[in-house]
């Protein structure tokens, strides 16, 4: 054998085989991670004196039992996947952006205001608020992006602070200027009828709850972002800045601009998620309509290792757990907290990545010593 690393001595076929095996291991490990998490949840339910079989059957089969539940799943998965995507892009540039919440509120606000106030003909009435939401999200993303890229601010602090501001501004407007006159609850007037995202029910003929064509928009976004990352120069730059910022700078890439772009693209996608919430879901602006979605989006991105195509899978899986958890709570005496436990175990296993790496190493060792 000549001097060199292991991979250098392989031929192309061998290398491709190794790569395929690596991919298979990754998929297998993802499944194993989920199984372990479910197992931990199972034990916790058992330990707290409830019936885990009953709870799990409610959670795991519940979402598919009725078409409206499927609709709820699709609607939730749409928002969650969009949020996962919005975080994955800055993450790929190694920017720890936690600003999805502010971008989401900004998008929701922009979509809501336009859809409530501006009278428009059909079709245009949908497009304009969506574009406004994406613009508002992008602008909200640009602020911490510029702070980080040009002024050297810490992007974690910048995005978190901006979140706090955005939530307060949103609440203030919905409580004040935008509050529907004469209503007892705090919310805005409803959006105009033409501005609502068309429901999927009209297409499939079965009741699918609030699921709407936002689902298709989301799938389009996935493909677009995947193409962006793999087949455009800006995507290449984002990947290089994320892989090694010093290398990118050495190669002549304008690193600050790339960082800003990663924030802007992420912001626009989060804004789209905001539009989906208002135009496809609530139909009006309400305080706290975002809930904990923004942070769950981060989990989805982590789970998918920031790969846009995997984010969809992770998003659908994750929202399935969320919807299933709600059903479990309604039908049994086990609360949604158990879903949080399962989620937490998954996050731990994924972020540690201990499992797959350990397994791969073991595999390599047995092959070498043989």
């Amino acid at each position, binding site marked *: 054998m000549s001097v060199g690393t292991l991979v250098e001595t392989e031929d192309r076929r061998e290398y491709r085989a190794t790569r395929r095996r690596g991919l298979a291991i990754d998929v297998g490990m993802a499944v194993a991670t989920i199984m372990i998490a479910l197992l931990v949840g199972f034990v916790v339910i058992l330990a707290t004196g409830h019936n885990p079989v009953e709870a799990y059957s409610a959670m795991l089969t519940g979402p598919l039992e009725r078409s409206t539940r499927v609709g709820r799943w699709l609607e939730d998965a749409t928002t969650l996947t969009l949020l996962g995507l919005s975080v994955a892009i800055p993450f790929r540039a190694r920017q720890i952006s936690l600003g999805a919440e502010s971008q989401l509120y900004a998008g929701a606000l922009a979509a809501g205001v336009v859809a409530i106030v501006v009278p428009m003909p059909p079709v245009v009435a949908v497009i304009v608020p969506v574009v406004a939401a994406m613009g508002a999200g992008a602008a909200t993303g640009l602020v911490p992006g510029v702070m980080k890229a040009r002024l050297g601010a810490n992007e974690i602090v910048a995005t978190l602070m901006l979140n706090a501001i955005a939530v307060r501004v949103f609440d203030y407007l919905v409580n004040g200027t935008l509050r529907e006159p004469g209503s007892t609850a705090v919310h805005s007037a409803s959006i105009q009828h033409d501005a609502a995202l068309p429901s999927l029910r009209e297409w499939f003929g079965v009741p699918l709850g609030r699921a709407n064509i936002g689902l298709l928009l989301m799938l389009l976004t996935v493909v677009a972002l995947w193409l962006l990352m793999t087949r455009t120069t800006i995507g290449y730059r984002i990947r290089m800045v994320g892989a090694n910022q010093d*290398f990118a700078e050495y190669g002549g890439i304008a690193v600050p601009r790339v960082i800003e772009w990663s924030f802007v693209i992420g912001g626009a996608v989060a804004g789209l998620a905001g539009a989906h919430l208002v135009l496809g879901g609530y139909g009006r602006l309400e305080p706290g309509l975002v809930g904990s979605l923004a942070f769950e989006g981060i989990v989805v991105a982590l789970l998918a290792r920031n790969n846009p195509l995997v984010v969809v899978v992770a998003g659908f899986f994750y929202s399935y757990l969320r919807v299933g958890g709600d059903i479990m709570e309604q039908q049994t005496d086990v609360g949604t907290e158990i879903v949080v436990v399962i989620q937490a175990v998954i996050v731990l296993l994924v972020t540690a990545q201990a499992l797959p790496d350990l397994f791969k190493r073991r595999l390599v060792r047995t092959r070498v010593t043989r």
Partner: protein
Amino acid sequence: MTPAQSPGGTPAVAAVAVTKTYANGVRAVRGVDLAVSAGEIRAVVGENGAGKSTLMKLFYGLEQPGSGEIAIGGDTAVLHGPGDAIARGVGMVHQNLMLVPSFTIAQNVVLGVEPGRRGRVDLKAAVEETARLAEESGLQVDPKARVDQVSVGMRQRTEILKALHRGARVLILDEPTAVLTPQETEDLFASVRRLRETGMTVLFISHKLREVREISDRVSVMRAGALVGTVDTAEATDRSLASMMMGREVTLEVVKAQARPSGAVLRVRDLGYRPSDAGVPLDGVGFDVAAGEIVGLAGVEGNGQTELAEILAGLRRPTAGVVRVGGTDLAGAGVAGHRRAGIGYVPEDRLHNGAALDESIADNLVVDRHDRPPLSRRGRLRLAAVRAHAERLVADYAIRTPDTAVPVGALSGGNMQKVVVARELSARPRLLVASQLTRGVDIGSMRFMYERVIAARDDGAAVFLVSADLSELLTLADRLLVIKEGRLVGRFDSTRGLTEKKVGLFMLGVERHDRGHIGSGLDEVTTT
């Protein structure tokens, strides 16, 4: 060689059928039998990745063998960590020195085994102990000086004293001369010989064959994790050792025609630099590099060569003076502007900024040109063109890889450097700035780099070569500059008959040329 063949009875250190496989599957050491007798200076040579460092880590307890045994002083020793090795009298001086910068030399020497009682360190005793050890071994240090204020050579001597203070009878020196000037190297060798007189056993790791032949009694050669053989130094030649290392006949000589320089490509005048970080300031630096010549820059590391190279590459902005390439004034231009002006740059640390280790070879080869045809059009990256470009460079530069999708981080040092050099030379730069071109690169790749750089010169490129390796500079450079503390202190317009020793005197500041000589023949260049 088997342990039985070592002269002088019980070996001071020995490895018996030792094998070490790392977790990532690399078998770094395979079935090595090595025995070193007491009072011997044994050199261990080999290419990068041949396993010499791993073998030393096994002796020092930093790694544990997968199979086989380590014996110290004739007894089988199971070393769970460096503590066990130190207890048995084994000391190691690492390539990257491991000292506390803010402590004095005496404090560093006694660190961990301090004189004094009840948790209090007797500093006076520490100074005395250090002075005594220095006196006995001939390793001159100033015990009261702070480590961050003394030269690299003195830091290294401190490391050796630290090992002596802990009672080392076996001393492992891992590439000790890599950071030293020729004069400091001579001093080190004198001390090492003196230690041998006292019965010290020394393991000397190096890839500089000339030094190995100078200092060692016997030489062990490793290749691909295995011990190829051990020979008496007196019977070895550079050529025979290199052939053992490579496993085939190699020629070390580089064929180089007389340089035929034409007009100046790079003009640097009165360059000044005040670093905002921990860099070295530059002052009044002025020189030319013409098309078709290689100008070398010598200097002890940390005297401003990094800063100068990075200024030429556009990674740092000078605070005074002019840099011109061809007709372009580079004031205010960023990296992209410098590259557009025709500058290629091989950075000194390819792991830091020469490559994105997790990304593919193909992606690494286009970082400077991904935004232009034929690789992209209107923001669309053409994957087929990127792959074709990579396939071509992999073939042209003999980069060994099964596929262009392999992440660069999976390649060995020499191969990785080929990726960097392939990218920079294939851009056909007017000026190539190359820092530490062959650092951590095997002999085969080293020769390859030399030939490529000379070929680029003969094609009319101006080459500015920064290196800590004087033999490399004297081999490649047509002219040589010497830098010390951010100023040019020497200029040799021919390297014919120039010796490493002579250049070393300039590097240390013992000799210097006057400003008139260094600046002679430079035409006036004004900012536009």
